[in-house]
């Protein structure tokens, strides 16, 4: 612990503190971004059964994932002040017809689990 503090002071003095932040010659920059893991399951409100084929996307972002046969989804996305997830039925009648839904995430955590229910059309 003491050694670590010394190392940081010396590092700071020598301007290498570029913070023990380095990148190998042929490597990538380091990742200092914040993101969160959004996971969950989408079910039909009336039947309670999982819905496959629902597009789960982040508003204003290219990212999306399609729910699997258990209605589950899981992806990392940038941590933002206002994060809205959109749930859209994009496969027509294939897995039933459901109304779209938007969910605003207010909780700030590095991992969020959502249980989503969609109304049948």
């Amino acid at each position, binding site marked *: 612990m003491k*050694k670590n503090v*010394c*190392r940081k002071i*010396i*590092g700071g*003095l*020598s*301007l*290498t503190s*570029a913070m*023990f*932040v*380095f*990148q*190998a*010659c*042929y*490597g*990538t*920059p*380091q*990742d*200092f*971004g914040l*993101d969160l*893991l959004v996971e969950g399951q989408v079910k039909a409100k009336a039947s309670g059964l999982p819905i496959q084929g629902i597009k789960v996307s982040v508003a204003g972002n*290219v*990212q*999306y*994932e399609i729910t699997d046969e258990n209605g589950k989804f899981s*992806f*990392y*996305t*940038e941590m933002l002040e206002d994060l809205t997830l959109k749930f859209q039925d994009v496969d027509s009648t294939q897995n039933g017809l459901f109304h779209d839904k938007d969910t605003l995430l207010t909780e700030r955590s590095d991992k969020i689990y959502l249980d989503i229910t969609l109304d049948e059309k």
Partner: protein
Amino acid sequence: MIATLKKHAFKAYKKSAIRKHELNYLFWECTTKCNLNCLHCGSDCAKDSAFEDMPIEDFLKAVDTIQNIPKNFTVVFTGGEPLIRNDIEICGRELRKRGFKWSLVTNGHLYNKQRHISLLNAGIGALTISFDGLQESHNWLRNNTHSFTTVLKAIELATSSNRINFDVVTCVNQKNFAELEQIKQLLISKNVKAWRLFTIIPIGRAVNNPDLHITDAQFLALMEFIKINRKTKEIDIKFSCEGYVGRYELDVRDSNFFCRAGINIGSVLIDGSISACPNIDRAFSQGNIYTHNFYEIWHNKFQAFRNREWTKIGQCKSCKDYDDCQGNGFHNWHGEHTNVLVCHNEKIENAIKHQKR
């Protein structure tokens, strides 16, 4: 006075970092297959289809031996071309489950919108794409007539995401040397924030192609180009950490030269060998994940990396800058290890002497 103090502080820091040898950065050479046939292949990466891709489980077993993992520990997928593998995202998610960050180095050819999304979904945090000039010079080096257009599209995708810490790397050579200003403008127009410049180390196919190497005078001009452009701050431009650049240290990079290979940087290579940066002579491999505990090797071996006195040989033996340079980047020691392959500082000093004549 302040400069001397900083220099001493840096040396003390370096000693302490070597003693601690905290593993912060782990390359995984996940494939040596590649979709390109670059003229400089074998210099910074290698194509060799003789090796099967390493199964993810084997790599993760090695990763799981690591103890006391620092908070900023990151795994960097490299190759070959890592995006040839369709399971990068699976491995990325496994790493994130363990609390680790991950990133990848790519030639950009397979970086399309679908892949961009799936990599983001799997928690990628940083990305480097190679871009080596304007249309003709880039396509020349990449040996592919469509590469320029394809890579520009990949760059546009990468810069569209705020999540990814992204930079572009360019290998400076005879064909693109006169284009550096235009390349810079092009990158800025594509919203690229960070640009790293390299020279090509004479290993692999790069040994016998004079067009791949710049002269001492050009190297000096490159240092000036970077120095001037760092002041304008239009783009975060820097010289790579490939070598010690004497009087240009701190003018062309954020911090003094410190080759961290084997000190903070490790690798698991395609055959399971344990080493540091993948472009280092494979004779320096320290063990193999299939026969050794990865972390024990990292912790207890790597002596040649952590005590570089052995590099006081050849032209380094009597060099007045040895204490600051310590044999240049470790990847500059190939073959018999009797002399450093490239001395960047010598190139600079030679060019300056020549100018004065």
